[in-house]
């Protein structure tokens, strides 16, 4: 039975510019399926991957809502007119008042907002390396409100770690991951800082590894998992922070050989905070596709876009969505 489907103006470019389409079928569902086959771009907005009508698609048979007529099984007759009206809906953040108050300052930042905070809350961040130099980064991630902070470090607290912000002298000799998790948990009840569980699947990684070999290995794991990651490498001057969104030049392409050492200087601790900030950016703004490197030399930072080395294994990748 020929039925007329009325296309609202904002959707007409998906229907070849037409205001009306004619399709046949015994029910609203059959008519809609035929429209979707004839106009795939429109169909993609109306039907999901399994062919079911998306929940926001409003349908009217004449002036009556189809769902009040029995849904897609509602019978149609010759000459009926079906109007498509996508529902327009949304909602404010699911953050409660306490969380809003806690993160009010960053919620106000344009481009961050409630959506960014919700992405942080849903994130599982693995921190590889938790010595004293990494402590500002872990604290910053907790304060920003990541959902889960997995601390991956097999070592114990040593005297050199006391230069950081989390470890106390009486904790020397205790496992770093457990001590850091317990201390960090006191800063926010909205975040779960935990020792990294074997086999855990993080959604982002911050590498603060004690050696270049460990950093390269951890960054490679994150690259293969196609998750955003940031690597902090400290050296005698201060160090570098390298941000690597999925598909960007890998850590091996982006670094230059650091001289080693993890000096307990304020500049190094500042760089660790900056590394956390870079990771937060990648979690909050998943559309970021370009990698960048921040070098800190005697307290003075410089920023440059990372470049892929010819022949690197990461060259075959493209950013998600391209």
């Amino acid at each position, binding site marked *: 039975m020929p039925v007329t489907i009325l296309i*609202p*103006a*904002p*959707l007409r*470019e*998906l229907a070849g510019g037409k*205001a009306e389409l004619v399709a046949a079928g015994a029910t609203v569902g059959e008519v809609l399926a035929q429209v979707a086959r004839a106009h795939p771009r429109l169909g*993609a*907005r109306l039907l*999901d*991957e399994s062919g079911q009508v*998306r929940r*926001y698609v*409003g349908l*009217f048979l004449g*002036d009556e*809502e189809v769902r009040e007529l029995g849904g897609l099984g509602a019978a149609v007759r010759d000459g009926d007119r079906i*109007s498509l*009206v*996508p*529902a*327009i*809906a*949304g*909602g*404010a*953040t*699911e*953050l409660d*008042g306490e969380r*809003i108050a806690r993160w009010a300052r960053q*919620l*106000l930042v*344009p*481009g*961050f*907002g*409630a*959506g*960014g905070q*919700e*992405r942080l809350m849903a994130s599982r961040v693995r921190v590889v390396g938790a010595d004293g130099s990494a402590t500002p980064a872990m604290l910053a991630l907790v304060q920003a409100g990541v959902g889960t902070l997995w601390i991956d470090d097999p070592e114990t607290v040593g005297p050199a770690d006391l230069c950081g912000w989390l470890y106390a002298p009486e904790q020397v000799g205790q496992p770093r991951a457990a001590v850091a998790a317990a201390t960090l948990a006191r800063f926010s009840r909205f975040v779960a800082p935990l020792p990294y569980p074997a086999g855990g699947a993080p959604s982002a990684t911050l590498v603060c590894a004690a050696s270049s070999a460990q950093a390269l290995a951890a960054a490679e794991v994150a690259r293969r998992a196609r998750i955003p990651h940031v690597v902090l490498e400290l050296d005698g001057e201060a160090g570098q922070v390298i941000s690597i969104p999925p598909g960007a030049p890998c850590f091996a392409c982006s670094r230059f050989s650091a001289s080693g050492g993890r000096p307990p200087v304020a500049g190094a601790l500042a760089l660790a905070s900056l590394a956390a900030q870079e990771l937060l950016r990648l979690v909050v703004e*998943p*559309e970021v596709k370009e990698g960048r490197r921040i070098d800190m030399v005697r307290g003075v930072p410089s920023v440059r876009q990372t470049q892929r080395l010819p022949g690197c294994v990461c060259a075959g990748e493209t950013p998600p*969505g391209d």
Partner: protein
Amino acid sequence: MTEAGAGWPLARLVALAEGSPGEEVCGLLVRAGGVVEPWPMQNVAPAPATAFELAPTELLAAMRRLDGERGELVAVYHSHLAGGAGLSTRDLAGALAGGAPIFPGVAQVVVALEGGRAYRILVHRWAGSAFTAAESWSR
């Protein structure tokens, strides 16, 4: 005011939002006859303090009116009573279908309130793979 909302009746959106400090307001911004004006609609979301849904019957009428007045839908607007003017995950879920905007070329405008007073409007436009925001008004 920046280019993002130039010529749009942002002051009226502020008045509409502040006139409803307990529920989110929502509606369309429509260009007709060279002028952009708000078409406010009833919010029929079950929890209107934290969500919005344009009344379907009013939306149907608006689509017919668009044809009658040769209007152009330029944006969907709504307010947030708290939490800023960013698009929340629920806003994105409502604006996208299969990773693309339901209404191609239509911006999303969010008026942010705090304590019942509007302090920021962001205009979110689709930039190929995500919405990007531009501040259009603040105080």
